[in-house]
Every structure is written in structure tokens, then in C-alpha cells.
């Protein structure tokens, strides 16, 4: 059924349709609307779930860890500092191979404190062993939660999934959403049957100490599963398309790139803006396009190579930066072309939209115009030089 919905409410609705038995969260902007909505659904008796209000994000993540280990589908959501406070548990959940879905309402990192959107929070946890999927719009955010549970709980995966949606832009934005029906959801996502769990009938120990004789293989195993996920994710999205009629590749999306001479690569909601600019420029005869990365972990290097190998000039637009190095997505794209015969002549990197600064259509046009024969290693867009002068003086 299609209706206008706030992103957070839509996510709460799809999570509710996935029937998590345990939900735990701690308030942080801009994630709060999601869990408020879920709390209301539980309070109204519309969702049969244990909603556990905790004293911190560390405990929220720990609660869902415990619930997942007991064999119950579970859910949590957070943002920014909350995700960082969870960080220790985030790594632990993946290390224990527990299936979960977490919504990260992407938000900037303090200091200075800033509640608005960028992607520095989830990007900083890229090495945690979680599958990270980035949504472009509210519909995709909704669908990725359902797809996320399906991937996470599959016996060949057993990895947690972080659905990343830009804070405010998607969590508080309102769009027409086609909400799946319960019957279809149940068909696509059967009830969770754990491979192993805490069970008094069949006692096992979980979370053991692994010494140097064993530790490496546990990390290798996750790394290996991540590689398998590169083929498994598109399989699940293909199945999803059959049931729900919406087609996602799950790894990346190529938008008007076939004959393109200049292509921007990016993630999240900004891809919607980029598509608009691409359409405008195309109407003027400019050969431009977009590659939207949906799966940042696992990173689809082979698919990226195929999508960009014949494009002369590529710009990567990051909503985060690795301070003292380069922009994270740019590093991945460049690595995908390292020592390859076929490669774009120019791969330039741009950083924009930090701390909620709007990335306007003009910002995107500037990126295209800066995509010249001069390679740019890490250029900030919409920087205000007058503020820099102030802070240096």
C-alpha cells in the first residue's frame, strides 16, 4: 500500500513487520523517531516484542546481542556518538556471528557536537565485520531492512547488517512509500531458526577465549563470508524483486553510465540529488552518470571495476573523511583499479556534506566541473575559506 510516510515511521513499520522479539535502544537524535514509533506499536499491542529501555547504547547493543544469542530476532537503532559508544559491542556481535539488523541514522561526530547528517559514524566502523548497506531514499531504507534480516539470518552468512540511512534527510523526510504487506514479508522472511543458541536442552558455550592458535581463523572466516556476501546479496535482492517488484542490485547501481565520460560515485541520499543533476546535464547533451554504492561492506570491488573501467573521468563524493589520509570511499575505488590495465584516466576525490551542510545541485555541478584532467586527491566542496582564516588567526 502506498502512502506518504516519514522515514522513521516507515522504518519502524517494516521492522515491526519483521516481528523482532526483542527491541532495545537508547535515545539519540536523529534515530529517536524510529524507536519511539516501535515503542508505541508495542504499547498498543500491535507488535508482540520485548521493548527494553536501557541506560546506554552500550547496553542496547549488549541486550540485542544476548537476545540474538538466545535465538530471537532482535533490533536496535542508533546514530553518531551512540554508535561509537556501541563500538566495542558492534565488533563483538560480528565476532560471535550473531544475526541482527541495526539502523544507523547517519550523523556527524563530535567535537564539535553536531546533530546533522554525514556518514563519518558508520564509515568509522567499516572494519567491524558488519555488512553495511546505504539507502538512497526512504523506500530503499525500508526495503533494505527486510533484505537485511534475510541476509543476516541465512546460515551461509550469520553476520549482522547495518542499514545506514542519512539522518534527518531520510529519517525525518517524508516520501511516498510502498509498504510491504505482512503476508509477503512472512513469505520472504520466514521465522528465525538459529544455527546455535543458548538452550538448556542443548547447552553450549559462546564467546570463548581464542589464543593465537585459533584467533586468525575466526577473522578469516568473517572475511571469507564477506566475499560470499558479494554473490549472496544480489541473490536475495533478486528474490526480493520477484516478491515485491522493486529491483535492487544490492551492491551498486549504475545510473546513465553507459556512454558517460564523467561519473560521480557516492552513497546514500545524495545519490538522489546527483541523479537529478545527471538528468539535467544529460538534457544539455553532457555525457554524465552516477554509480551509487549500496554495499560498502562487503565492498564490491569487482562490480565497481566493471562499472567504471571504461569511464574516462570518475569523481568520488564522500560524506566523510579519514583525517590525515584520504576520503574512505575514494580509497576503496582507487584500490579497485590498482595495477589494472583498464582504468579511468582520472579518479578525483571530493568531500562534502559534513555536519549536515547541504549538498545542493550546484555542489554536484561543481564536482562535475572540477572533474578535469587535473586529478584531485581530496578536495573539499563548499568550503568557507573565511571561517578557516578565522580559526587559524
Amino acid at each position: 500500500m502506498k502512502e506518504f510516510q516519514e522515514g522513521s515511521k516507515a522504518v519502524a513499520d517494516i521492522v515491526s513487520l519483521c516481528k523482532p522479539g526483542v527491541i532495545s535502544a537508547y535515545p539519540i537524535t536523529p534515530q529517536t523517531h524510529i524507536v519511539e514509533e516501535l515503542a508505541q506499536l508495542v504499547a498498543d499491542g500491535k507488535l508482540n516484542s520485548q521493548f527494553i529501555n536501557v541506560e546506554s547504547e552500550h547496553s542496547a547493543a549488549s541486550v540485542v546481542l544476548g537476545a540474538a544469542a538466545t535465538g530471537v530476532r532482535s533490533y536496535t537503532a542508533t546514530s553518531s556518538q551512540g554508535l561509537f559508544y556501541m563500538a566495542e559491542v558492534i565488533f563483538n556481535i560480528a565476532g560471535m556471528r550473531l544475526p541482527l539488523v541495526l539502523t544507523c541514522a547517519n550523523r556527524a561526530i563530535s567535537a564539535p557536537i553536531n546533530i546533522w547528517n554525514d556518514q563519518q559514524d558508520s564509515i568509522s566502523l567499516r572494519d567491524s565485520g558488519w555488512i553495511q548497506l546505504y539507502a538512497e531514499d526512504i523506500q530503499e531504507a525500508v526495503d533494505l531492512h527486510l533484505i537485511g534480516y534475510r541476509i543476516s539470518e541465512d546460515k551461509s552468512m550469520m553476520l549482522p547488517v547495518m542499514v545506514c540511512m542519512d539522518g534527518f534527510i531520510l529519517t525525518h523526510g517524508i516520501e511516498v512509500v510502498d509498504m510491504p504487506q505482512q503476508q509477503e514479508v512472512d513469505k520472504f522472511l520466514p521465522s528465525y531458526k538459529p544455527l546455535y543458541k543458548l538452550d538448556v536442552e542443548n547447552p553450549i558455550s559462546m564467546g570463548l577465549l581464542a589464543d593465537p592458535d585459533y584467533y586468525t581463523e575466526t577473522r578469516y572466516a568473517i572475511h571469507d563470508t564477506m566475499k560470499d556476501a558479494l554473490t549472496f546479496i544480489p541473490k536475495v535482492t533478486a528474490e526480493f524483486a520477484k516478491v515485491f517488484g522493486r529491483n535492487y542490485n544490492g551492491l551498486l547501481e549504475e545510473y546513465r553510465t553507459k556512454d558517460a565520460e564523467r561519473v560521480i560515485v557516492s552513497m546514500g541520499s545524495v545519490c538522489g540529488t546527483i541523479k537529478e543533476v545527471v538528468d539535467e546535464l544529460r538534457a544539455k547533451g553532457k555525457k554524465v552518470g552516477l554509480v551509487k554504492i549500496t554495499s560498502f561492506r562487503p565492498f564490491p570491488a569487482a562490480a565497481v571495476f566493471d562499472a567504471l573501467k571504461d569511464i574516462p573521468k570518475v569523481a568520488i563524493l564522500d560524506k566523510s573523511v579519514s583525517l590525515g589520509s584520504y576520503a574512505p570511499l575514494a580509497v576503496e575505488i582507487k584500490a579497485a583499479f590498482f595495477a589494472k590495465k583498464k582504468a579511468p584516466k582520472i579518479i578525483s576525490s571530493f568531500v562534502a556534506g559534513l555536519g549536515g551542510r547541504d549538498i545542493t545541485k550546484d555542489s554536484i555541478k561543481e564536482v562535475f566541473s572540477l572533474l578535469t584532467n587535473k586529478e584531485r586527491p581530496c578536495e573539499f566542496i563548499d568550503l568557507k575559506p573565511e571561517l578557516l582564516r578565522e580559526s587559524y588567526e
Partner: protein
Amino acid sequence: MSNEPLFSSGHTACAGCGQSLAARLVIEAAGANTIVVNNTGCLEVFSTKYPETAWGVPWIHSLFENAAAVASGVEGALKYLGKKDSINVIAQAGDGGTADIGLQALSGMLERGHDILYVCYDNEAYMNTGIQRSGLTPFDSNTTTSPLGAQSLGNIRPKKPMPEIAMAHGIPYVATCSVGLTQDLQRKVKKAIAIKGPKYLQIHVPCPLGWRHEPGLTIQVGKLAVDTGLYPLIEYEYGKLTGARQIQPKPVQEYLKTQGRFKHLLNNPQELAKIQEIADNNIKKYNLKAESQTGS
């Protein structure tokens, strides 16, 4: 009970480890229908080094400070599955994992009213990392981070009042016990398990390595802590003191002299007086002195 032990021998605890004995007594009292959530610490390390485990019940370890929160999730999941009434959940940790780094998660668990027994194995320092002081390290104790020196007589603060902190949450049952008094320990575990809601049990567990006493003296050292009044065995039910083990108080030296961590105090009357005062205050506060023995 099945023939499978709930906590097997063959683990790698030190000789005379009070915690390993206490852990076995706890799980045997709780029974096979129990899920155990363990903080990081000695017990976790010596009982579950892959590919071996000492545990005959479902057992999980996540991190240093989150057993109370993980257990909350386990309990929530059991409620969702409709199994909570038939399965006990125990969260357990050392003194550092309880009184210091895990205090926030514990407070949350107690406040939320989960049906969980939280067990703190109190060996009075971070033993797993090499005898650093914790919030439950006693006054004047010599540890690697409260060492003796020209300007130091050991740990400068008394033990954090964890039982009272737990009790302040308005929970149904709080108790202390000692591995030196095994029947009392198991009685309290059984009593706690039978009560719905959050329960806090703090067990004094001598550590031969950290306290520097003979491994064969673990039980005796535990008993002496109780008998001197330095480790009062008390029970609170819904905030009311309902039990206090009566003692014929022995001078604190009897306890201190058994352990290397207090050796520096034995010829220091001033410091001994301070520690005697701690014991005397406990005896007074909890009315520990056995009445039949009070001649004076």
C-alpha cells in the same frame, strides 16, 4: 540432576582459587535449568579457553562490562519465547567488572526489574590482569596499582558499598556470602533463584595469588574475613536487613596476617587500628556480635 557436571574440573584456575570453587557452588545450587552470562575476567578465561569449556549449562561471554545487559537480553528473549518461568538467568562478574566498569550496566539491569541473579565474585582486585586495585579493594591493601612506597601504605579507600548500592535500587534480594561458608553460600543462591526479579549476590572469594596466602588456606582465609567482621554476611529483602551472620569477633590481625597484601600493616599499630575500626563499624552497623558470647 544429570550426571554431566555443571562446572567441570580440568579448567586452568590457579591452585586454591576461591572463585572457581564459588562458581561451581553457585551453578550447582542454581541447577541445570540455568543460562549463565559471564563478564570478562579470571573465571571466563580459566573456564572457557577454546576448544574447551568447563560449563555444562548454556554459557555466554561477551565483554568486560556488559554481562548485566547481555543477561537482560537473554531474559527478554526467554520472556518473548514464554520460557522465562522455567529457566534461571545468572549474570556473573568479578569485583572490577561489577563495581567499576560494569556498574552502569548492572544499575540498568537492577532498575529495569529483570528476573536475573547477578553474582559478583569479589576477590578484591583485578586479578586477571595482575592484581590492580578495584573499587572493591580493601583499605591499605597492597596491589600493583596501589603499591607500598615512601608515601603509600596501599589502597587509600575502603571498599565501595556495593550491596547497599544494589539495595538502593529497591530490588527484592541482596546478600553477601563467602566461599569459606559453602552451605550459607548455596542457601543464598537457592533463596535468590526462588525470588522473581533482580537479585544481587556478592561472594568473597580469596585469591591465593593476589592476596599472597597459601593455596591450602582459601577456606580458612574466607572464614577469617567473616569472623573478624571485615566481610559481614548480610541479607537485605526489599531494602530491609533480614539476616546477618553472627560472629564471635576476632581481632583483624588474625585475618591480615594470613596474607602478603597486608603484611606491611602487622607492625603498624596506627593502621591496624584503622582497619579494626572498619571491622568494629561493620559489627555495630549490622549487629554481628553473637549475643550469647557477649560477656563484657
